[in-house]
């Protein structure tokens, strides 16, 4: 982890001092390099160990249909992509998530603002927010399946119901932590309401809204696939169910891993990068 060691270049330091500094820096860099090398060594041995174990189990211990060899899964993944099946089902699931999550995000953010500023509304919605956080997704998947039947509407509503609370909770946390000292500073300097919103509220809330996206999204794609397992006619979940019912571990894992890798990529890489850009003022982000 990089700490912020960005001190302004000291103009008054003598050449001797800067010499010492350079030496110290070189030492530090060497130490960091050694650390990085050790980290990668253990990381890679972790991968080697686990994939080796997997391969070993599938070739010597149990039958292929219980633990299929990694290569078979990779091949199956390639087949799925080459045959174009992937687009049909990814498309179905992703459009469910996109619609459901957008609605949930807008509603959840509004609800979060409301709850964060009023004790009364907090108690009004408190039970429901908590209940949707802890109640198993299956319950909502079955309820929406019952009301909306087959088709895309059921999964969308299930996504909305479950991810709203995740968004709300994060926004509430931000609203409650509002930096009063900065607000009163801005008021003392007679800044307009809009200026306060733009320069104080929005930058302060940004990380909370980002966290809300990440949490909300991570729950949205899980519930979307789950609902498809129950009522879907297309989508990742639908394919997972088909492979499960025909006891094809290879196909099942291929679909799961494909989508899982995709979702993880969106969550950790794409969102994280955006977050870093917005949060570059933070000491731990500013390198």
């Amino acid at each position: 982890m990089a700490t912020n060691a960005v001190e302004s270049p000291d103009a008054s330091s003598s050449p001797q001092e800067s010499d010492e500094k350079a030496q110290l820096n070189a030492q530090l860099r060497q130490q960091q390099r050694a650390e990085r090398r050790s980290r990668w060594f253990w990381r890679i041995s972790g991968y080697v160990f686990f994939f080796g174990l997997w391969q070993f189990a599938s070739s010597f211990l149990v039958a292929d249909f219980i633990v299929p060899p990694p290569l078979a899964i990779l091949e199956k993944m390639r087949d799925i992509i080459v045959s174009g099946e992937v687009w049909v089902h990814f498309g179905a699931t992703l459009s469910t998530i996109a619609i459901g999550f957008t609605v949930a995000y807008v509603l959840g953010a509004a609800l979060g603002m409301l709850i964060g500023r009023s004790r009364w509304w907090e108690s009004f919605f408190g039970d429901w927010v908590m209940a949707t956080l802890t109640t198993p997704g299956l319950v909502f998947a079955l309820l929406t399946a019952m009301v909306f039947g087959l088709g895309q509407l059921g999964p969308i509503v299930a996504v909305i119901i479950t991810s709203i609370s995740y968004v709300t909770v994060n926004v509430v946390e931000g609203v409650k932590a509002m930096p009063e000292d900065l607000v009163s500073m801005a008021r003392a300097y007679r800044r307009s309401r809009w200026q306060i919103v733009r320069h104080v509220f929005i930058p302060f809330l940004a990380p909370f809204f980002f966290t809300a996206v990440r949490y909300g999204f991570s729950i949205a794609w899980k519930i979307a696939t789950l609902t498809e397992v129950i009522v879907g006619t297309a989508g990742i979940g639908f394919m997972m169910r088909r492979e499960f019912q025909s006891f094809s571990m290879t196909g099942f894992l291929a679909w799961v891993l494909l989508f899982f890798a995709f979702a993880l990529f969106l969550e950790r890489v794409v969102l994280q990068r955006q977050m870093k850009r917005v949060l570059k003022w933070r000491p731990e982000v500013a390198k």
Partner: protein
Amino acid sequence: MSATTLRRPALPSSGAKLVNVLKANRSARIMSWISLLVAWQLATLVIPSELIPPPAQVLEFMWNEVRAVTVAPETLYMSFGLSFERLGVGLAIAFAIGTPIGLAMGMYKPVEHFLHDFVVVGLAMPSLVWALVAGMWFGFGNLAPVITVTLAAVTFVVINIAEGVRNVPKELLDMSAAYGVSRWRTIRHVIFPSLMPFFFAALRYGFANAWKGLVLAEVWASTSGAGWVIKFWYDAHRSQGIVGYALFFILVAILIERLVFGRLSNYVFRWRATTSREIPEPASEAPAKEGA
């Protein structure tokens, strides 16, 4: 000075009293339940009743279930009892496996690097996947649900305990060393209490994830338990059964959250000021940032 809070003086008239009562937080909660019932009742007037059962019908169903009168193969008590039994066994195994791994990860950097990526993947894996995999491996019975619980909870245990070990306050360890406190006493009075909140977080988030996985495993890999019964009502096209059971699930969630975890967190954090007895955030975030 700045600590003084402004409050308007209470008004004496009876109309104002009613307003005050309505403004109380407790009545907000009651009103939210009432407005749900009203909205639901109104919805049943518009939408055909085979899709949404009227509240009265569902309440009747729930009352029957509570009295253990049911056409399902299991009563309410049997199904939830069995599920919690599976949950308990699975969680115990998860803690037994996860605690030593978490301790090792927190104490030794190589172990941390060795396991980190796999733990993160495990954290993000939907519990649906664990349920279906366990179903394919172990077929119908008790084993698949229990294994699902363990798989869904173990990474939460590992990551939180590793985080806890990293958070043991170094200055207190130094203090103990300076006073020559014995190793055992240090573990008991310094390390263990500072790990407590993280054990608690592991339990809470592991529990939540495991509970979600368990009901799925019960649907696809067993023929008993609360998850299986709600699926039973779904397959039987009994909408009041689905809604009734859904409400039972929600009630159980609220009960566990308020009674079990609420009390437990008050106990675990009794040494803290009353305002900061919240549990720490799930530690799943912190290590992820490190890698980036």
